[in-house]
């Protein structure tokens, strides 16, 4: 216990921040900026390192992380285990497809509409689903996502199961070149950073505290007079809208949209990635996404049997890091500082 600082509760979620703050004043506040700067510089460094391909890979990680962050918000802070989040990604992606098919070409219009339409879909689905609890909530969100999936499969105009190719990139505006891979990367990075910052802030706002209160004891929050249903619905709609935005970005990233992006296994994977990283942890979603997608990418290089190591990883996480990888890192950070 030598040198321990009693004002640092090492078990709290913010332990890393608190501890690094104590040891290196200012680093904790600067760490996110450091990560951001590294990410921003990556496309410039990549060609020199021979890593051009990984610019696209990181872009995909960022987009999936946007969706995962929104899921982490309702799952980790709101206790809403939605197994249909890929449905909103799909709604966003198909909104972009619909606008392109109708002749629009502005990226901002397309992505904005993707978020809006997905938010509306989330409002309708949430209004029904939030009447249920626990496993029933898991299943009813799944049911709605399956309906959306089968709808997309049978939509002839947008290619159905064959998918829809977005052959010309969307336009970002006068001074931004939408066809330029690095420009699109930076746009995605900016959006991801904004979404991440926004959700981190909201999680610690009064609304965020109320949401956590509902997660921990809903009956008490009702008794205290909180409009529980409305608060949950607001969170669900916001998460749905952000997932829709991620869907819109994913459509641009792939230049292709097919119903497979909203298959139920995609919803399950999103849930898995969030829990792997740590549900309700600030860095849980991006950590989980980065870890999972990197492992998937790496394993596929070397073996056709790349599913089982991931399965084993899940079991290891469940038994040895039940709070996710983010919590593991926080704990280690805590121990180091104690020493």
């Amino acid at each position: 216990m030598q040198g321990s600082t009693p004002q640092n509760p090492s078990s709290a979620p913010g332990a890393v921040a608190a501890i690094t703050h104590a040891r290196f004043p200012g680093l904790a506040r600067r760490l996110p900026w450091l990560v951001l700067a590294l990410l921003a510089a990556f496309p410039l460094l990549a060609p020199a390192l021979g890593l051009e391909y990984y610019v696209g890979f990181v872009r995909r990680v960022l987009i999936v992380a946007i969706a995962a962050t929104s899921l982490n918000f309702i799952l980790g802070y709101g206790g809403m285990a939605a197994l249909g989040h890929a449905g909103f990604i799909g709604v966003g992606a198909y909104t972009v497809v619909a606008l392109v098919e109708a002749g629009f070409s502005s990226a901002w219009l397309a992505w904005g509409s993707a978020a809006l339409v997905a938010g509306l879909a989330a409002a309708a689905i949430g209004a029904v689903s939030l009447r249920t609890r626990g496993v029933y909530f898991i299943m009813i969100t799944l049911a709605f996502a399956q309906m959306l999936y089968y709808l997309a499969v049978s939509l002839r105009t947008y290619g159905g199961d064959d998918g829809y190719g977005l052959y010309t990139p969307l336009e970002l505006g006068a001074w931004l070149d939408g066809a330029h891979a690095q420009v699109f990367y930076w746009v995605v990075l900016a959006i991801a950073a904004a979404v991440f910052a926004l959700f981190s802030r909201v999680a610690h706002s009064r609304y965020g505290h109320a949401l956590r209160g509902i997660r921990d004891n809903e009956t008490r929050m009702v008794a205290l007079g909180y409009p529980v249903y409305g608060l949950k619905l607001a969170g669900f709609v916001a998460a749905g809208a952000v997932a829709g935005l991620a869907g819109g970005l994913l459509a641009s990233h792939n230049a292709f949209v097919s119903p497979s992006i909203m298959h139920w296994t995609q919803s399950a994977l999103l849930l898995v990635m969030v829990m792997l990283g740590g549900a309700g942890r600030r860095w849980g979603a991006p950590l989980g996404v980065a870890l999972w997608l990197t492992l998937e990418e790496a394993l596929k290089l070397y073996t056709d049997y790349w599913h089982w190591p991931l399965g084993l990883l899940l079991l290891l996480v469940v038994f040895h890091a039940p709070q996710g990888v983010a919590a593991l890192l926080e704990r280690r950070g805590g121990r180091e500082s104690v020493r």
Partner: protein
Amino acid sequence: MLQMKKLSVALALCGVAALNVHAADIKVGIALDLSGPFSALGAEARDGFELAIEKLGGKLGGQPAEFIRNDFGGNPEQANQLVARFLQRDGIHFFTGPIGSNAALAVGPALFAAKVPYLSANPGPSAYAGEKCNPYFFAQYQNDTYDEAAGKVANEKGYRNVVLIAPNYPAGKDHLNGFKRLYKGGVKDEIYTKLGQIDYAAEIAQIRAAKPDAVFFFLPGAMGINFVKQFVGGGLKDIPLIAPGFSADEDVIQAVGEPMLGVLNTAHWTHDLQNPANTEFVAAFRQKYAGRYPSVYAAMAYDTLMAMDAAVRDVGGKIEDREAVLKALKNPSFKSLRGEFQYGANNFPVQNYYLREVGKDAEGRITNKLVGTTLEKHQDAYVGACKM
């Protein structure tokens, strides 16, 4: 911290990859369906590729070659990701592999932009045959042509009333429209089922009530297996079944067994087609894979690599001259397993289509048997829309 981790992993990946690079001049990216909805067909294709690589001694046109094979799980998004890696990290010269039309449509634009020839080892989507045709895409058949041949078979057999059944998605409708293109009789009913449906009792009852002369079904993979098993179990085995080749190939036949006997199906190749290249291929395949007959997917995979081999040889190994490579690919100088064929204006072949019937070979093994030629030098219906 997270980003450092990611970077270091990425760097590690590259380091290992760099060690793997030998003096290979020519790189072929092969995206395989080894998991996901088409895994059985993907495994057939892989076996065909491996046999071809063995036969070519790991070379293309006498030049050392690297064949990069990776699973993409039958998911178009993952196919996209894999192709990005093939293009940006590996710098491939040829691409092939995916089983599904959706994956083919997803990866096309990136390959065409990078001027990498995509020799399809299976799908021939109508978009690539018509409006979105591209000099860098080469098909082995157009999706609807199998159905067109099946429609002609129905005419020749004198069927006047046919029930059509397919999954409810655009490809299902395309296949039924393909059948109707050459079929002259009446259509009693068109039944569309849920994608991935397990139980077909309701549809089978409808078919029984309709009393058709024959049933044409396009139900790929597990759906076809479920349907045929239940169809025969329901006592409808006296109603002839007609299918495009992919609903009645070796994978389905071996999984269904006896109930498949007598199913009529059409394809541009069959394992008992008589030509020297095919005889050699089938013998080698059966020797390597425990007596199993190759399916059309294995044959197409094999042919794909042979086409690349011939093209590299024809350009004298000058693989960077894309125009010359395209020209060589368009005028293939290899002996195809399917016999003679030519490419049409849209890079889709003009070739024969055959009628096959599921029967038993000399050893009592259930397999497809060649009945005769249904369409001669047939071209797809979309070529007119191709402006290339």
